[in-house]
């Protein structure tokens, strides 16, 4: 386990690689998604997984938490879930004649917010605000959340009855959206033939401690991005804004997220500088959930984003 207080970049690099290897033992046949999720964690962002039930969203979240030694809580969002159920509540203690704060499930390193869109907007925004600020205010008192703090939200694209889909402005708080999709035949066969995921999950070993994760996040912020690539990021963002087929373009926060994620991606590739490839690799995951196509267009957002990638010249 990687637990030195100040390990070298090469060490950190190795740690990340073995973490990814460990996760791929459990999540079979989804290397890109696994990497994007890790990238998201390393960038200090949060991750939205939108997919059908049963494709392994929970398993992915669980595995990541375990591998990175994160304390893990799961919150199942329902229509009657209240903000206090997430954040915590003060309860009167008759013995000491005081109110004692009982922290909610959000006081942890990794939260799986399952089926976000089932809860009421009030409850949703309680979570989203906590994600953004890394702190919550309950009864006038500000309490800081743990560091690292990583939220994996899931949405069910089908079965929309009685749900409150997150508006685009709220989705912006998630750094990436990852689609897991069905496993391919070979992976599915492995899944069927092998041990149960639950048992396997028990065997997963943590590869680093919390301090190392924080170190990693800090080291990644120092990855060099040249001016030429800042130009590239800007022209990508501008392309989404100038494209009439989108209702609106990407926000500055999206641009910052793109840079952060590209840095992490470069680090995961073993480099200390960002290349155009890193930006291209994370661009789709970062932009798709933040953009909305006009309805008269037949193409979906993913295709439009691909088009932008194909039409924007690399400086």
């Amino acid at each position, binding site marked *: 386990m990687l637990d030195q207080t100040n390990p070298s970049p090469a060490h950190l690099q190795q740690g990340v690689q073995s973490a990814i290897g460990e996760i791929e033992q459990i999540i079979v046949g989804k290397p890109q998604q696994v990497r994007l999720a890790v990238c998201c964690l390393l960038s200090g962002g949060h991750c939205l997984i939108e997919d059908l039930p049963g494709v392994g969203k929970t398993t992915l979240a669980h595995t990541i938490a375990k591998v990175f030694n994160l304390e893990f809580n799961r919150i199942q969002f329902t229509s009657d879930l209240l903000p206090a159920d997430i954040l915590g509540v003060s309860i009167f203690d008759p013995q000491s004649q005081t109110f004692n704060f009982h922290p909610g499930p959000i006081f942890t390193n990794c939260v799986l917010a399952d089926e976000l869109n089932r809860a009421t907007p009030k409850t949703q925004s309680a979570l989203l605000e906590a994600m953004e600020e890394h702190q919550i205010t309950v009864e006038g008192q500000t309490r800081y959340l743990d560091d690292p703090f990583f939220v994996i939200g899931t949405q069910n694209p089908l079965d929309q009855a009685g749900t409150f889909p997150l508006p685009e402005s709220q989705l912006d708080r998630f750094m990436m959206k990852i689609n897991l999709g069905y496993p391919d035949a070979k992976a599915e066969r492995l899944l069927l033939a092998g041990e149960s995921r639950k048992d396997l999950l028990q065997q997963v070993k943590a590869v680093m401690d919390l301090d190392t994760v924080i170190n990693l996040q800090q080291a990644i912020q120092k990855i*060099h991005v*040249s001016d*030429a*690539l800042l130009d590239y990021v800007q022209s990508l963002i501008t392309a989404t804004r100038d494209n009439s087929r989108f209702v609106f373009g990407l926000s500055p926060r999206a641009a910052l997220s793109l840079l952060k994620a590209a840095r992490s991606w470069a680090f995961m590739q073993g*480099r*200390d*500088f*960002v*290349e*155009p*490839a890193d930006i*291209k690799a994370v661009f789709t995951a970062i932009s798709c959930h933040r953009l909305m196509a006009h309805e008269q267009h037949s193409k979906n957002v993913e295709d439009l984003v691909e088009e932008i*990638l*194909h*039409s*924007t*010249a*690399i400086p």
Partner: protein
Amino acid sequence: MQNNLPIDRIAEETADRTSIVAVSLSFLVAMLPHFFNLPFWITGFTLFALMWRGAQSRGWLWAIPRWILVPLVLAGGISVFAEYWTIVGREPGLALLTVMTSFKFLESKTHRDILILVFLCYFLLATHFLFGQTLYIAAYMFGALIFITTTLITINQREENIALSERLKIASRLIGLSVPIMLILFLLVPRIPGPIWGITQEQRGGVTGLSETMSPGEISNLITSNEVAFRVTFDGTVPRQDQLYWRGPVMANFTGRTWLQHKHTELKNLNVGQTGQLVQYTITLEPNGKNWLFGLDIPTGIIEDSYMNNEYQLTSDKAVNDLKRYTLSSTLTYQLELEESLDYLLLTSEYPENSNPETLALGQRWAREYNSDTEIVNAALSMFRNQEYIYTLQPPVLGRHSSDEFLFSTRRGFCEHYASSFTLLMRAAGIPARIVTGYQGGEYNQVGNYLIVRQSDAHAWSEVWLEDQGWVRIDPTAAVSPDRIEIGLDQALNEGLSSFKIANRNPLIGKILYSWDNLQHSWNRWVLNYDQQKQMRFLSNLGLGIRTWGDMVIALVIGLVLITGSYWLISWYRDLPERPADYEIIINRLLKKLERSGYQRKPSEYLHEFLVRIEKEQGYQDEDLEKIFTVYNKIKYARGYQRENVIKRFRQLSQEWRLKQTT
């Protein structure tokens, strides 16, 4: 301080301490060599003013109020007048300028005052050329110019806080850029003959050299001077050392102790019976403040603005106050004035009867004993050769009968003792004789191929008139046996006789010294001697058709326009958008190569994406290309790879790369 203030507001701002210190230092630098030219009290007052202003800027002293300053300024002006009894001219003008600048320091408050002071420093610096024009002064002024310009930058920088080294660099660049303009002005501004600003002889003091009279001890004072008297370039070979007698003032009148120049007349026709080969040479004469021009014994002609006097001394019409360059030819074997006038022969046979009785007696005895004049001359020379006469630089002090004391008791002397006694002996024996002073020998500078004649080469010798030979040069000093030249002479001389000089030193040091002297010689020839005549010759040799002053002015304007125009062009070119970097040119060349093979990179494709496409179509893994692309990405996107060696390697890799032909 703010940058966006209007210029007149900036000018009225109170000067800060840095500005005052910087401009004070500039003033000191501009003045430093002048402190030797000015009376002591002016130097003192200047230093006082600077210190007061410095203390004032630190808050230790108060500013002197105007009602005290105004009377003081008047008093300063009067003091300068009292010192010189004029305020016109070189020294008084400089003194007045210095005193008034010092007052300006005491009065200075604002940025505008400081600017005025900086420009006064520039002006003061230029005045150095009124006092001397040597290479040393030019070099000093160049350094001082950079210093003052740095000050100008310092006081005008506001929030920029440019590092001192950077300011020095900017100043040096500015001065450097002005050099071509300086050269054009130097070459093309029409020269006016004559010294600048009518500086007359009186105003040039302190020239060492031969004097108009000769008494024992005078030349030996000169011999410790290392100063250059003149430099000579010979056409052809340099004559032997013992032939190098540089003729100067001739002295025919004798008072019993001191030899004086006879009132001479202009020689109408040169009566040199030339027998030997002519030697031609060019002399660059340092200023001597006298009318004397030196030539190798005996010049066969004269030069412009000069005449030959009846004692065959080449004489200039005007005192030599500036460097003078002239070409002469001389004959080393000659017959001089076979038919000398009787008056002059009588004059050169005279001697005061009441002094040096023993010398006179000896001369008269020889006249009786020997049959011919030649025998008498030989008798005298053999006396110096065979008796215990010693050649020394520190001869004993002689009394009234100097010749008697030297010949018969002390027997220790320098060239003037020998020449003086010998000449007197000859006159006593009835042979017309005279003293010739000048220089003997010279030191050959093999670096510049010329002869250096120094003040230490000063010499005195005799000439006797023999009936069938005319004036014949006799050097009695040369008759003294070489083994009686006092040991330790070179130490006593320190920088003494030419034979003890540069040539005898460590070869490396000698070479450096010769090169330095050569540099000075070139400076004299090409810069100081660039007069009207030289300018005309230089310009006509250029072949640009510059012949008149009008042409020069036109050429001057064209030259200045060309230089400033080229500066403008350079700065315009530098402001152009940057050329694509080398590595971009290299990768574009490689991509062109790929394009010819049918692989075109899409603009949105990064290189490794493109590589994957190529490899798929080619059907093999191109590791070389991958490496090239990786290096390119490092150079372009990473930090610290835009180094020459990396780019060189990158260039090499991409030039060597070829697409393999697949079947």
